[in-house]
């Protein structure tokens, strides 16, 4: 069965740490980093990257468009 795997890249220095992406993720992939970026904001990162399906929800709600999304189809 074909499965979908996704991945996101967060523009760490542009992230303002609003956490809206975390609530929008249906597979609970994202968390806020303990570290902060140059502006002092905690930034989003993939805590469970293997659960990401590349659904683009996080990038859709991100007010600063800091998320880039990639997706592939995996055939078992």
């Amino acid at each position, binding site marked *: 069965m074909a499965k979908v795997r996704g991945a996101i890249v967060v523009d760490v220095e542009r992230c303002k740490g609003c956490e809206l992406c975390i609530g929008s993720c249906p597979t609970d992939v994202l968390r806020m980093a303990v570290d902060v970026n140059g502006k002092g904001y905690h930034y989003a990162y993939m805590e469970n990257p293997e659960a990401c399906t590349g659904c683009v929800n996080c990038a*859709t709600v991100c007010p600063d*468009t800091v998320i880039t999304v990639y997706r592939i189809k995996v055939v078992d």
Partner: protein
Amino acid sequence: MAEIKLEDIIKPENLVFQKTKLFTDKPLSYCPGCGHGVVHRLILEAIEELGIESETIGVAPVGCSVLAYEFMNIDIAQAPHGRAPALATGIKRVYPEKFVFTYQGDGDLAAIGTAETIHACNRGENISIFFINNGIYGMTGGQMAPTTLPGMASSTSPYGRDVASMGHPLKMTELVANLPGTRFVARHAVHTPALVRKAKKAILKAFENQKENKGLSFIEIVSNCNSGWKMTPVKSNQWLTENMLEYYKLGTLKDE
């Protein structure tokens, strides 16, 4: 099944979403979690999809989004407070083949610019008006706006808006939907992925209406102002769902 590494997924050929090229390199000046950024992106994505970036002229308001010209890599004029629909009227009449839109907040469109808005809508100018309603004067420090909800606290109504002395919130979208000049009037929100996708469809339609000379499209977007409301971004979106959407009901009010 072989282990798939992130490097195998993050390749240019697997790209499904990236920031539109119509954004400039400047970071947005809005507070964390502000809906303005999403609406900026939706407008720019719609312009990019229609391929009209060189034929579009935007009109920026006074308010938080006064610096829209810094972020949008298209032609933008910046109007005096509230006068964006009047300026857009002038631009559209001089360049009828261009796509002209205004981007206004509730302080600009529903307070100081009420007359310009209503008359532009009533004349049925062939422009698109995008109205971002967060129920407060965000830029100046969260004062009460005409759109502030009954009972909603702001810095100038600390005990909540009392309708007996301060009047009722102004529903601009319902008001302009009654005017014969408007063609497409809708209210949307951008705090969940599904609503963002719906709002984008409406914004695309607003530009397409201009292409077909169909008349004025008015789209209100109910948004948050977490700084003005003194909440976290996530909390403010919850509050918006529970309170704002009760009064400002989403949907298409007019589509002729």
